[in-house]
């Protein structure tokens, strides 16, 4: 069982690294909405290696930074319910880890609440595994 878990952890780590590269490509092509959807896929929730979680967090942040304010609403509108939940988790991680970016994160937060409601925020509050 331990071996299996280690294999899963390594694959998750690889996936995060590959995703970071893919997202960068999409951003360079200004395919921001696609980059957002990809960045929010399969987050390494509860992963034992904090650097894997950090890397994915940086990927998501890089996408959020790429958007101009008026584009955020439409982008969030296209996300699935599961994606909005993941986005909200990263926003709250951002509030605590990157307080200097709070202003931008709050813009995203407003749109995420518009789409996912307070239920979405509640799910961040009850999450114990940590994104």
């Amino acid at each position, binding site marked *: 069982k331990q071996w299996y878990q280690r294999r899963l952890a390594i694959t998750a780590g690889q996936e995060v690294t590959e995703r970071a590269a893919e997202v960068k490509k999409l951003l360079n092509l200004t395919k921001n909405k696609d980059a957002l959807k990809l960045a929010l896929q399969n987050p390494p929730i509860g992963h034992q290696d904090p650097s894997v979680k950090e890397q994915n967090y940086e990927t998501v942040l890089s996408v959020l930074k790429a958007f101009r304010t008026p584009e955020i609403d439409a982008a969030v509108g296209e996300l699935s*319910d599961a994606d909005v*939940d993941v986005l909200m988790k990263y926003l709250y991680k951002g509030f605590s880890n990157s307080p200097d970016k709070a202003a931008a994160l709050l813009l995203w937060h407003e749109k995420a609440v518009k789409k*996912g*409601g*307070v*239920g*979405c925020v*509640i*799910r961040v509050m*009850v*999450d*114990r595994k940590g994104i």
Partner: protein
Amino acid sequence: SSGINAEWPLRPGERVLSVDWAPKTNRIVTCAGDRNAYVWNWDAEKAEWKASLVLLRIERAATYVRWSPNEDRFAVGSGARLLSICYYDEEHDWWVSKHIKKPIRSTILCVDWHPNNYIVAIGSCDFKCRVFSSALKELDDKPEVSPWMAKLSKFSTLLAEFDTSDGWVHGVKFSPSGDKLAWVSHDSSINVVDMNTQDKVSRIVMASLPLNSVIWGSESSVICGGHDCYPVLYNLVGDNVVFGAKLDVNNKKADGGISAMARFKMMDSRGGAEKDNSTKLDTTHQNAIKELRVTKMAGAQLKQFSSVGKDGKLVIWDVDALVAAIQGLKL
């Protein structure tokens, strides 16, 4: 017409946490933070309810209590992380309590009985919904094999465990037939499972605040209430849980609107704001709904239910009236 006249044998500072009435045998059971439960029997001669102490043998508060369908036993959930099944021992004239402990890891918040009287489900603070056998030889239980109980299982056997929730499980309820089980939890989700497909839990995560209680409107619909202060209907469509309708028909404010004179006075004193700044919600309940209870059924169809809230109100809801008032409402 008679309240509980006996002096309530409760230590100061402890709250009664749950009550249940057994209509066929006319007994009431209560449980409280003082770690006790009492069974109340009606004494017709003295016109009062007499309390019998039930020794639960638990070291934490008793949080939730329910009579079984046949009313020959009741289940008490507690903060002691165990479920007490209590029944009356004729020979010794007292209530016996047997414990179901493994593998419950945290406070039990809700309990519901299956119609067969020996299967019981609980929701707890360890985010899981579990189904147990409480079959007792002492009570002549004759359990039968069923999708819930693949092989005959004795008292305290864990029959099923569901971990789809990320939050405390506030409410749990078997469908009228007992074939399905629904639970609501603090991660703002509703979860439903059919006993024939226990690996497939139908789940919806909502945009609204968490629900505290769930009951069934029929075999294919559930009614829930919680922190948004109104009862809401969800339908089971195939494998999905789909929003049905908010069941609180918007009622006009009780004061019936403001007169022109009063409006101008308000604008004058509040500097132009015409909107009434009161904190009154436009739902019937002014605070979270704590619990929903079935009060009338016609077969497997719900006809009437009640809700109690943190606003101190007890509201009776008539399903036929709601169906008439809300377009497209289907249970």
